[in-house]
């Protein structure tokens, strides 16, 4: 419960404490109001909820399972560590939960085109997938730097029929893809829904995305109860924009005995300035449509973020996380690239699971939590995605392939890449 006696879990926006709101061009207000109304009525419509539940069951593979990982946990002070396996979802991450909901909303609003931004590509792939499933036109904006880091996911999106637009402005990463998607949307809002990928942006996106991700925590809470007979002592999740973390945290917000820990991308270390940890090392400000913690310089200009994980390489974080941090209900910590990759390797070697590098940040946090809480504790970890998209990055990090091989592979990929993002007739 909050200090005012209200439930943390009952907050619906547009503000979460001092955070949130709508810092957007007037041109978008009508569209945001339309989405807000569609979302509110849909969530009260048994037909909509049944259709979404059926898609989860028959298409994305829900409920996702819980996996206990004792060999990994042996490195975590002996605490029980259980993983919520969002990596087993269709398309390989929690992103599909949100996108299926938003694609249904798109149809409900009578729009035929869906746009999205993506960093690591997981949200882009999920959006392209849902668009293919529901017959929607799909355009995905992706920072040019990320299209290079995540070439495999670019190919996936194109195979699914989406147009992928590399964004060459700014830092050429996720924040610039968001900017470009907003530019598209302001010009096309009559026909287009912007399927925002995380719990950030202007209201109602933070609450809309959260509502579609809550299923992760609802399932996990019951699964941990079934497995251990009690609630977990701590929940760990990686935090970029924050959608998987809110998804798993939300069911526990009003369980005061459950500690909530978010792990931001510490990059080279927050003391170096090369990181993506706005809560740990940023300040409250306005960014991409909402008041939130953000990495800004003294003039309010956005500072470029850095992370080995394209999915966490974002200088902002959602307003609900900002509020949970400011209120003390959840705790946020930076995890460096090195710590994340060490945890990545440990899970691979001890349990036969290759996690997304994003999720490896939460795994690194779980190791610390387990050591701190001791062998009687249970730590629930959101394994938000699987690592097939990150194999190239990991192989480079661990030196598993020679530089010569990588150069040759890169050259071949460039040569084979479609030159035209549209109408390639694939």
């Amino acid at each position, binding site marked *: 419960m909050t200090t005012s006696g209200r439930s943390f879990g009952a907050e619906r926006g547009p503000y979460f404490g001092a955070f949130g709101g709508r810092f957007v061009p007037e041109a978008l207000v009508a569209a945001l109001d339309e989405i807000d109304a569609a979302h509110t009525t849909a969530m009260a419509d048994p037909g909509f909820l049944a259709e979404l539940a059926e898609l989860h069951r028959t298409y994305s593979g829900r409920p996702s399972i819980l996996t206990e990982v004792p060999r990994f946990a042996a490195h975590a002070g002996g605490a029980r560590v259980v993983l919520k396996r969002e990596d087993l979802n269709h398309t390989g991450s929690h992103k599909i939960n949100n996108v299926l909901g938003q694609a249904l909303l798109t149809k409900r609003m009578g729009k035929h085109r869906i746009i999205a931004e993506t960093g690591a590509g997981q949200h882009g792939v999920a959006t392209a997938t849902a668009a293919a499933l529901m017959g929607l036109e799909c355009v995905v904006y992706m920072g040019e730097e990320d299209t290079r880091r995540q070439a495999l996911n670019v190919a996936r999106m194109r195979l699914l029929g989406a147009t992928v637009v590399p964004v060459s402005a700014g830092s050429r990463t996720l924040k610039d893809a968001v900017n470009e998607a907003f530019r598209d949307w302001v010009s096309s*809002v009559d026909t287009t829904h912007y399927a925002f990928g995380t719990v950030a942006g202007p209201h109602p996106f933070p609450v809309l995305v959260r509502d579609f991700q809550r299923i992760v925590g609802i399932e996990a809470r019951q699964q941990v109860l079934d497995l251990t007979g009690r609630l977990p002592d701590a929940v760990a999740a990686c935090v970029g924009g924050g959608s998987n973390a809110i998804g798993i945290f939300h069911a526990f917000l009003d369980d005061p005995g459950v500690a909530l820990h978010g792990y931001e991308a510490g990059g080279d270390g927050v003391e170096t300035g090369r990181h993506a940890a706005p809560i740990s090392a940023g300040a409250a400000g306005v960014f991409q449509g909402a008041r939130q913690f953000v990495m800004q310089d003294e003039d309010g200009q956005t500072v470029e973020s850095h992370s080995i994980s394209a999915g966490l390489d974002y200088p902002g974080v959602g307003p609900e996380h900002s509020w949970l941090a400011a209120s003390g209900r959840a705790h946020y910590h930076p995890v460096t690239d090195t710590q994340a990759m060490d945890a990545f390797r440990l899970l691979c070697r001890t349990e036969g699971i290759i996690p997304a590098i994003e999720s490896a940040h939460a795994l690194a946090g779980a190791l610390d939590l387990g050591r701190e809480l001791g062998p009687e504790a249970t730590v629930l970890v959101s394994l938000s995605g699987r690592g097939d998209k990150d194999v190239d990055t990991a192989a480079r990090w661990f030196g598993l392939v020679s530089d010569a091989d990588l150069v040759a592979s890169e050259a071949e990929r460039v040569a084979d890449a479609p030159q035209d993002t549209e109408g390639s007739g694939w």
Partner: protein
Amino acid sequence: MVSTELQDSPTGTRTAAAAVDDAKAEGRAALVAYLPVGYPDVDGSIEAAKAAVAGGADVVELGLPYSDPTMDGATIQRAAEVCLANRTRPADVLRAVEEVASTGAAVLVMTYWPPVDRYGVERWAADLANAGGAGLITPDLIPDEAAGWLAASQEHDLERVFLVAPSSTDARLETTVRASRGFVYAASLMGVTGTRATVGAGAADLVRRTRAAGAERVCVGLGVSTPAQATEVAGYADGVIVGSAFVQRLLDADSPAAGARAVGQLAEELSAGVRTRP
């Protein structure tokens, strides 16, 4: 209603409201020119803005460059990136305001909200007023989120120019008009800044609806770049706002002096445009 109390600012600052009204008294629309502070450098942008005034601009919008300009198209964003690479800071913008205002033109600052939020709304309002600025145009700040700015602008007699869009409902038009001082900025189309072959077909209707919502002065921007378009918009609006076309002149110039000359020339052409009967 848009306030008329700023016709004679206590500080002697020329207001946009006065500039628009003076143009109206001449039987024409006002010309509003946008230029980003810091392109090609701070001094160069000041010279360009003065050239725009000399060429006939009644109001100058000085842009405070921001790293994530979501309302801007490629032209203005490209210039903003150079401004930021030049480390253009709020203090540079305030100096530009002071110098351009000294020409007698009304000077508004156009800014995304994060830099002002970071600077401190009250402090920014005080410093802007001291520099002789008339007020702010805020493309990503809607009245719903503007409580701090409404109070600070009232305190320092500053104009606040909010935007309306073709998608604005009548109720939102009324809210926005009530919150505005100086003029209301009507976005001619759903889109971002940039030159276009034609002005949005809905612009005239948006001006009509905004006036019906109570606005005394409505200026039209987004996509206006040629004298003919200026003439067309002047036929139904109180002011014609041109941005990307000016910025493109600077981007195309091979020296700051040539850029300022090109800006001055375009201002002359557009100034003739707003004086021509459609």
